[in-house]
């Protein structure tokens, strides 16, 4: 590792152990100013761990790092920030109890003798957000924001520090294309100023569009670094997963696959004040209905209402019968499954092991009348799901909170697959999931559909929606603006409805 003059940050032989878990075995990396360097790897490959080492959250077990030619071993995030590293964390690290402005300016508030100048703080945050072109209100409390908006706040927070090196760990995982575009233009600007950017994402199109250099890692080990212009998506995927993958989407099933004439789920004029209105749609057994929309268009709210988590007016028909769910219990009993968008808060018990997490929505299935759990059956079922979804773990006794983000997402999926739902609602099901796993998830969705499950897939990733759904409902401002299928289903059409340029 010579320090060529244009290398701002370099690391070699970096190792990180968490007790018996080896997260990083042998990492090296060279970052140059004014370039976007993408780190690519499967879920659990060690990307986030690497980034946390760079900003001083973790200390490496072994290895050397240099920053601008000087030895670099940050002991705390403050030190890293002082040395010119800023980061946007993958798992949101915001304080829900405080406002957007207070979060953005956290720990570098404008202050004199320790007294904060609140007016200036708000102004600085507002200017930053306006400058970045992010659609968030700096006075809102973070706890009141949707996941996507929180992600925007996280980005603003990371960008509030002047940085030589900016790390973005899956900043777009909850963003739809229009917000992502805002981020990309910010990145271009920073690049032009000479900032080095380390970028992590699982969205291949985005990576190819944005990156200058791409480093692939596998199982905590350095695999290769490529110049974007000298490589292809196929090669990168092969490097990453260790085998070739020709297709990102599994083959579509023959049309007319849907069964029967009774919709599995039909929603009529579902309305909830200030959130959504007049939502009507139906899904047939075996059909995949996409739900597309921009951040805050109200899709998650609709799904929550269907699932009995929030009250709403209107009718819901299940298999031709009117139903009314006052709680998720009733929805689950009626055969609805719901993979929620916020896995940490709504999906998982992070402090519990995988087995109870996976069985948590189907507890009655593992108990007789007596109320005693059948641990053997539970273990078998959970193990089967772990295998089916290729969840990377040593055992079923591993705590859910210690898995990587993508693997956590698979655990949520496993939990709902185990309920064998007739209608499965998926809200951003591949958020933060690597391509290999995405393919698996897509394959499973397809397979479920072919078995007759009606599927609603809410997603902010347009390619995913287009690649998978039979029909797509497009929401904007709390209403369904259009439901498209067949030839009408083009990216241009969908975006036109979603952004409101087409009525």
């Amino acid at each position, binding site marked *: 590792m010579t320090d060529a003059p244009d290398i701002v940050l370099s690391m070699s032989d970096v190792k990180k152990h968490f007790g018996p878990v080896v997260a990083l075995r042998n990492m090296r990396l060279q970052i140059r100013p004014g370039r976007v360097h993408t780190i690519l790897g499967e879920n659990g490959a060690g990307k986030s761990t690497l980034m946390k080492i760079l900003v001083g959250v973790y200390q490496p077990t072994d290895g050397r790092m240099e920053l601008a030619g000087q030895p670099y071993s940050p002991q705390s995030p403050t030190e890293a920030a002082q040395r010119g590293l800023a980061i946007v964390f993958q798992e949101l690290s915001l304080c829900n109890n405080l406002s957007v402005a207070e979060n953005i300016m956290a720990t570098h508030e404008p202050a004199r003798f320790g007294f904060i100048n609140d007016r200036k703080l708000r102004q600085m945050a507002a200017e930053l957000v306006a400058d970045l072109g992010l659609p968030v209100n700096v006075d809102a409390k973070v706890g009141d924001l949707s996941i996507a908006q929180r992600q925007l706040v996280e980005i603003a927070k990371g960008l509030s520090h002047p940085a030589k090196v900016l790390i973005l760990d899956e900043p777009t995982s909850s963003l739809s294309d229009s917000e992502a575009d805002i981020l990309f233009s910010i990145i271009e600007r920073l690049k032009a100023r000479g900032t080095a950017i380390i970028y992590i994402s699982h969205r291949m199109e985005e990576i190819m569009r944005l990156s200058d250099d791409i480093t692939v890692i596998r199982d905590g080990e350095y695999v290769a670094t490529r110049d974007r212009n000298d490589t292809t998506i196929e090669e990168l995927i092969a490097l990453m997963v260790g085998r070739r993958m020709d297709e990102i989407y599994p083959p579509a099933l023959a049309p007319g696959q849907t069964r029967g004439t009774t919709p599995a789920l039909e929603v009529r004029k579902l309305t909830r004040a200030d959130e959504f209105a007049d939502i009507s749609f139906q899904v047939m057994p075996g059909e995949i209905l996409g739900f597309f929309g921009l951040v805050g268009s109200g899709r998650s709210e609709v799904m929550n209402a269907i699932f009995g988590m929030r009250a709403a007016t209107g009718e819901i028909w299940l298999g031709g019968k009117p139903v009314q769910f006052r709680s998720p*219990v009733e929805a689950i009993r009626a055969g609805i499954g719901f993979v929620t968008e916020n896995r940490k808060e709504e999906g998982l*018990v992070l*402090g519990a092991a995988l087995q109870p997490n996976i069985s948590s*929505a189907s507890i009655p299935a593992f108990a007789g009348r*007596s*109320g005693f759990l059948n641990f053997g059956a539970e273990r078998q079922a959970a193990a089967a799901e772990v295998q089916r979804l290729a969840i990377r773990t040593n055992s079923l006794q591993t705590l859910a909170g210690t898995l990587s983000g993508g693997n956590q997402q698979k655990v949520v999926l496993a939990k709902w697959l185990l309920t064998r739902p007739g209608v499965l609602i998926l809200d951003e099901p591949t958020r933060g999931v690597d391509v290999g796993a995405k393919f698996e998830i897509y394959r499973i969705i397809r397979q479920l559909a072919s078995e007759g499950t009606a599927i609603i897939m809410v997603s902010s990733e347009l390619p995913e929606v287009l690649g998978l759904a039979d029909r797509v409902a497009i929401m904007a401002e709390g209403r369904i603006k259009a439901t498209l299928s067949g030839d009408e289903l083009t990216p241009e059409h969908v975006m036109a409805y979603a952004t409101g340029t087409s009525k």
Partner: protein
Amino acid sequence: MTQTTDPAATARGQQLRALMLQYGGILMALVALCVIFTLMNGRFMTVANLTNILQQVAVVAIAAFGMTWVILLGEIDLSIGSIIAVAGMAGAQALAMGVGFVPALLFTLAAGAVMGGINGVLTAKLMLPSFIVTVATMGIYRGVVSLPTNGAPAMISDPSWIAIGSGSFLGLPIIIWIVLVLFLFNHILLSRTTFGRRTYLTGGNREAALYSGIKVDRLKIAIFTLSGVMAAIAGILLSSRLYSAQTNAGMSYELDAIAAAVLGGTSLAGGVGTMIGTLIGALIIGVMNNGMNMLSVPYFYQLIVKGLVILIAVWLDVRAKKRRA
């Protein structure tokens, strides 16, 4: 002991190791205490004294079983000391009215269930923090207990009621049998049933539990009711041991119960803990009190030593868990 690989023995060995891993720190503390007291006073390690300890620890242990449920849910119940007192008084009053032993017993248990249920409903349905709800009901129940006798204790002379605290069965005091049975009941309910599983999940993440179809409100009410019933049983034992219902009975026992549960590894954040741990925690407290009395340690020093032992025990436990992770 042998080098054969008998699978049953291996399984037992693994179980033992798992047990040691989970409770190593706290068991070490318990054993250390026993060794110290035995070395310092020859009478400590006698059957009579060990029986003594178990009897003395019974009231707190049973209350702590109930408390463990509540803490597992991420809640707290500060009213159990008052429930202990009300239960004793309810029993004494019922007996005084001549309803007979069994009806008085049932009435007392029902009173405990109602008081616990009130805590649960206020917490679950009105969405008030359980800390404040049970601080309030702690005062309310403590006021209620004094109403029938205007603060005076109520004598109990019913021989069956008295037998609970002083009788024996198969050579073991009845009170110890009760602790054992209740330990097994709570242990099995927690570790083997859907009810227990739901408690762990809800305590770990309430929101996720709701989405998984757990009726969180009902569960909460059920658990506070269970805690109330456990406290009522503790109150029965206490009044039986004292031949009377005292209006200041059980004062600040909630802290001992919480200490027992937390010593035993129950996390106040919810979702983590076991009945075995709580039992060990309660034993530590009991051994400590007994041992220091045996050594005639003055009262103020007892307070200090007790605090230090709690600190050391929890620290040993946290350290052992960290090393394992």
